[in-house]
C-alpha cells in the first residue's frame, strides 16, 4: 500500500483540475488565481505517466515547496520551542520537517482524490488572504477547504490548509508540542522521533 503513496498524492492534487476562480478585484483575485494555477501544475505532474513513483514524489515535493511556505510552516509548527532550539537543531529540524510534512499532507489530503475543487470566495485576513474553496463530490455534501495564503514580497505562498474547520498547521503544532512535552521539554526528543519516522 505504502508504495502507492505518490499516486495517491497525484490524485489529491488532481482534485484541483477544474478549478474555477471567481471574479473579484485586486489582491484577492490574484490569490485565487494562484490557488487555481497550483492545481493546474499539479495536474501536469500527474499526467507524466512515465515517471517512477520516486520521481513523481520528488516532483510533488518541489511543487509543495514552491506553493507552500514550508520554512514558515515549520517554524510555526514548532511553536514556542523554536526559541529553545539551538541553531544546529533548527537546521536539522527544517530538513526533517520538510520530509515529514510532504508525507503527511499527501496522506491526509489524499482522501479527496478525483474530486473537483471550486474557489468560492476570498477575503483578506491581517497580512494574509483566506481563499475559501469547496471540494464538490457527486451525491455527497461538499467539503469546505480554506487556504491561508501569505502574500510575500515576491509571490504568494500557502501557509495553512483548513479542512472543515481543522487546521493542518494547528494539528501539527499540537502534536509536536505533545512530543516535546513528553520528552521533558527537549527539542531533541522531537528530532529523534522525526528521524525515526522519516527513515521508516
Amino acid at each position: 500500500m505504502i508504495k502507492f503513496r505518490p499516486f495517491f498524492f497525484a490524485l489529491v492534487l488532481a482534485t484541483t483540475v477544474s478549478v474555477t476562480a471567481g471574479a473579484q478585484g485586486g489582491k484577492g483575485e490574484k490569490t485565487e488565481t494562484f490557488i487555481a494555477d497550483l492545481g493546474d501544475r499539479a495536474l501536469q505532474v500527474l499526467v507524466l505517466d512515465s515517471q517512477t513513483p520516486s520521481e513523481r514524489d520528488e516532483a510533488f515535493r518541489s511543487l509543495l515547496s514552491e506553493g507552500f511556505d514550508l520554512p514558515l510552516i515549520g517554524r510555526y509548527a514548532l511553536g514556542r520551542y523554536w526559541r529553545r532550539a539551538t541553531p544546529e537543531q533548527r537546521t536539522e529540524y527544517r530538513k526533517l520537517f520538510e520530509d515529514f510534512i510532504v508525507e503527511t499532507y499527501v496522506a491526509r489530503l489524499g482522501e479527496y482524490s478525483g474530486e473537483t475543487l471550486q474557489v468560492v470566495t476570498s477575503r483578506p485576513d491581517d497580512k494574509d488572504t483566506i481563499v475559501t474553496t469547496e471540494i464538490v463530490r457527486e451525491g455527497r455534501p461538499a467539503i469546505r477547504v480554506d487556504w491561508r495564503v501569505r502574500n510575500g514580497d515576491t509571490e504568494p505562498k500557502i501557509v495553512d490548509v483548513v479542512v472543515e474547520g481543522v487546521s493542518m498547521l494547528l494539528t501539527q503544532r499540537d502534536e509536536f508540542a505533545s512530543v516535546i512535552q513528553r520528552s521533558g521539554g527537549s527539542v531533541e526528543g522531537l528530532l529523534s522521533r522525526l528521524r525515526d519516522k522519516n527513515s521508516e
Partner: protein
Amino acid sequence: MALSGLAACASPGGEPSQIADPLEPVNRVIFAANLAVDTTVIEPVATLYRDVVPDPARDGVRNFLRNLESPVVLANDLLQRDIDAAGVTTKRFFINTTVGILGLFDRAAEMGLQRRDEDFGQTMGTYGIGPGFYVVLPILGPSSLRDTGGRFVDYYFDPLNYYADNTDRRNITLARTGLRALDARARTIETLDEIERTSIDFYATIRSLYHQRRQSDIRNGSAPSLPKLDLSGDSEEDRTASLED
C-alpha cells in the same frame, strides 16, 4: 525570557487552541486499549461490513439511522434558538420518512435540505460552555467533559429510547448504537489509518483533531477564526532567523 507568554499567544481568535488534558495518563491508557480493540475487532468487522454490503445499502442504513435521530437534532436546534435549522430538520424528517421510505433515502438533501448534526454538547458550546477537559471514553473514544454530559442529555431527547425502555426492548438501543458506530467506522478506515501512519504522537493528533472539529461544529462550519499565524512575541532576530533559508 517570556517563554510561557508565547504559549498563551498561540490561541487563535480567543479560543484556546488546545484542550486541557489533566487526565492524560489515564486517557492514554484507555486510548491504547481502544486502539487494541479497534485493530483486533472493530476495524476488521467494519472492513468486512464495507466490503460485503454494497454502497447503496450502507447509505440506506445510515440514512435510516440519521432519520431516527431527527428528534434529538430538532431539540438541539430549538435549544440553540435556530428556528431556520429547526424548520429544515422538521421538513427533512417528514420528507424522508414518507418520500424517502422510512428514512432509507435522503430525498430531502436532493431537494437542497442538507442535514446538519446537532447534539447537546454543541448546544452547550453555543451557550459559551467550554469543553472542560479531554476525556477518552472506553470504546466510544474521544470526548470532553461537556460532550460526555451532552450524550446523556441527548439520550433523553430521543423518543425511541423511551419506547425501548418502557417496553423492555433495550436491545433496540444497543443495536442502533452498534450499527451507527460500525457505519461510522467503515467510512473512516483509510482516513484513520493514514493519520496513524503519519503521526509521531497519534494520541495528541486525535486529541487536536477532536477539539478543532468540535469547535467547528459548534460554529456550524463557519470559520470566523482561522488560526492566526501570529509570531508576535518573537524578537526581531528570531523572525529573521526563521525566514532566512
